[in-house]
């Protein structure tokens, strides 16, 4: 798969104005995410990284431009379906549910996932990749560490079999072991279906972002460049 192939997910001239209508939060941003070629997005705090990721997930309104998934633009009723394929993971995950299993089961109650069912074997398999066994499912979500919350959120998303993951600083404030677990989970997820998955990794750590992605875009003042600002 090369970067010349049709992108899975594409931002086309995305523009978002500040509430004062004077300043641009996202200024004519265009980028493409290709299958099997994770994209890194770097930039200083307040540069617009999270806004860009949220715009790609269509979680925020934009003033102009569009997000295309496999060549199509999602609107209104098709947005939930789009978000089954392109899942955004918050920097600080929220896990509604008393236990990890309850949190993993929750998405299956949604209409968009009604054709699927929670598969414990799949969840245990994903957790096994990062050294957790089935007993982790019983763990109360209130007792999870930051790293365990991030892992649970990743497993919750991966079990839904999305095409693209949008990761908002997934390793921020995690210790070394948890960071390694997150990286392992993502690397194996890419490898299990070569050329069918991809992700966008927003991060601060240059080395880690280069290690986890095939190419990097830089964002500064809401504009995307190929070189750091």
């Amino acid at each position, binding site marked *: 798969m090369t970067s010349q192939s049709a992108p899975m997910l594409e931002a086309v001239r995305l523009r978002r104005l500040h509430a004062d209508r004077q300043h641009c939060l996202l200024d004519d941003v265009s980028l493409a995410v290709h299958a099997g070629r994770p994209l890194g997005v770097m930039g200083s705090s307040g540069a617009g990284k999270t806004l860009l990721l949220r715009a790609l997930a269509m*979680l925020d309104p934009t003033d102009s431009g569009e997000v295309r998934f496999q060549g199509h633009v999602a609107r209104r009723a098709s947005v939930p379906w789009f978000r089954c394929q392109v899942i955004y993971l*918050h920097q*600080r*995950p929220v896990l509604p549910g008393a236990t990890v299993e309850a949190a993993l089961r929750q998405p299956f109650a949604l209409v*968009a996932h009604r054709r699927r069912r929670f598969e414990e074997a799949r969840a245990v398999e994903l957790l096994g990749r990062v050294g957790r066994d089935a007993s982790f499912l019983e763990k109360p979500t209130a007792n999870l560490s930051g790293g365990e919350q991030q892992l649970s959120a990743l497993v919750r998303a991966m079990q839904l079999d999305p095409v693209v993951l949008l990761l908002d600083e997934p390793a921020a404030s995690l210790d070394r072991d948890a960071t390694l677990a997150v990286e392992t989970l993502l690397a194996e997820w890419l490898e299990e279906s070569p050329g069918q998955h991809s992700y966008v990794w927003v991060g601060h750590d240059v080395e880690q972002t280069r290690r986890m992605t095939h190419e990097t875009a830089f964002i500064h003042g809401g504009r995307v460049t190929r070189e750091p600002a």
Partner: protein
Amino acid sequence: MPGQLIELSVWQIGLAASLVVASAGISLALQLGLHGRLLWASVRCVVQLVLLGLMLRWIFAPGRQWYVVVSLGLAMTLIAGVVAFGRNERRYAGMLLDAVISVWACSWLIAGVALLAVVRPEPWYEPRYAIPLLGMILHSTLNGIALGLNRFTREVYDRRGEIETLLALGATRREAARGPIQEAVRTGMIPTINAMMVMGIVTLPGMMTGQLLAGVDPMQAISYQIVIMFFLAAASALATSGVVLLGYRRLLSADHQLLLERFQQ
């Protein structure tokens, strides 16, 4: 049977007022700091009720046209909507309009059923029926809307992380907001349900008391009270659900986005 009503003289009212003065004295003795507010509230109460009495005397005069009654009803509705809006801690763009629309649509619908189908005064806008009925219904909708909307905005803001997570996982806006909607409607309806539960046991409702004082047969007064409570329950349920659904559509877009920026600082 108004003939049986004992008319109160100014002296008798003054005697009742002396009890308020005594209460203010207690506040003063116990250094509660409430005597000023109590006396001011009493003065306001007297002035407001006298003005209301004068206005009702004018409105209730024989031969009033329907548009006079409707105009007064509209003014009462607008004030109720503004008050319901004003009781909210966290506001969003368009909230005042949502409150006024909900108060107006729900209270007028229930008042319409009350006047045209249940009580059926002649003519339908007879002020002695229309104004008190609308007033009671407005009070119920106002409380339901204020409580429901306040709870809804607080739930949406406090649970924004959960709502956004659900949206990011493919939830529709309705699925994502289901919890806050249910909590808000429940909160708005609970006072009316509680009032119905204790009706006649703990409380003797004001309207029924008024009818009894006026010499109406107790069973007839009770019939009115039962009907009124049903109107109030329906108005509260409708208005709370209506305003919460309007608010939900403002705070969650048709593209299934949570629009937190709509909250005003």
